[in-house]
């Protein structure tokens, strides 16, 4: 899309804001609508948009394929790890009171923050990985054909 000047300029402006909004949705999910799933998708959209307008090669310099594949598993591990941690400290699986035994309500906040982060990481990485798999499979249709 080398000749789409407006798209390129607008994308450069928007990508940062999209990421910021994704982080807001992620960490403000306790207070407003949103959470890991939505934030993950929005974050992935920032990378996918950049990859569509510029090139996959350029976005893969920021987020390489190997890193995406590791992140896919990391999110699930964070989620399950929270549960295993609470089990190891003598609580039920995924009982967040384990994270702050003297103040269970704080533990809930920490637990929700952790598992939402896990969800967000996995969803971001899976969406980006699927996009990479699609665009890596064959060259995109040339601009003129659209």
């Amino acid at each position, binding site marked *: 899309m080398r000749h789409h000047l407006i798209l390129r300029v607008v994308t450069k402006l928007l990508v940062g804001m999209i990421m910021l909004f994704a982080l807001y949705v992620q960490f403000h999910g*306790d207070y407003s*609508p949103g*959470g890991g799933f939505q934030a993950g998708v929005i974050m992935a959209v920032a990378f996918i948009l950049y990859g569509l307008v510029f090139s996959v090669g350029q976005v893969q310099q920021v987020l390489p394929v190997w890193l995406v594949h590791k992140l896919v598993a990391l999110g699930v591990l964070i989620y399950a790890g929270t549960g295993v941690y609470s089990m190891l400290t003598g609580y039920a699986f995924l009982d967040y009171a384990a994270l702050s035994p003297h103040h269970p*309500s704080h533990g809930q*906040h920490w637990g929700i923050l952790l598992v939402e982060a896990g969800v967000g990481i996995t969803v971001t990485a899976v969406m980006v990985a699927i996009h990479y*798999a*699609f665009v890596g499979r*064959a060259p995109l249709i*040339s601009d003129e054909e659209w």
Partner: protein
Amino acid sequence: MRSLFAVAMLSGAFSLLSALLFVTLDAVDVAFTEAAVGAGISTVLMLGTMALTARFERHASHSPALPLFVVTLTGAAIIYGTLDMPNFGDPAAPVHQHVAPEYFERSPHEIGVPNVVTGILASYRGYDTMGETAVVFSAGVGVMLLLSGLRRRKRKGDPDEDTQNKGGKA
């Protein structure tokens, strides 16, 4: 309508409209997901699929009568199923009588998170959400296994050369 590009765009617009519908029903979290996933990612992935396959639908070899009959029958069955649904916003509806009051009563002092939906998803229903994350994980792994087989070879070659090859084949 044979142009799959138009179909993909229309389904994206439909997703956005159903997100508005969810907002009207006060299900803001669902609307958020629908707008982000349905209108955003799905459209991009459909466009990606079109770039790999074809941009126009082939003419069907069979008559459309049977599919139309099946769709009409299913639609009629679904509408029949909604006839005995409680009215929208009815406080006596079964869904508001079962566990919801308990969550609303216990959530403020047990979880302390203002957004009850987040509290239910991440804490009371933590197992379910972990299952959903695992589903997303396995879906991603499945797509990677299915689609990334050719990628290693493609990336070594010159991208311009690949374009020419593809153009020659098509």
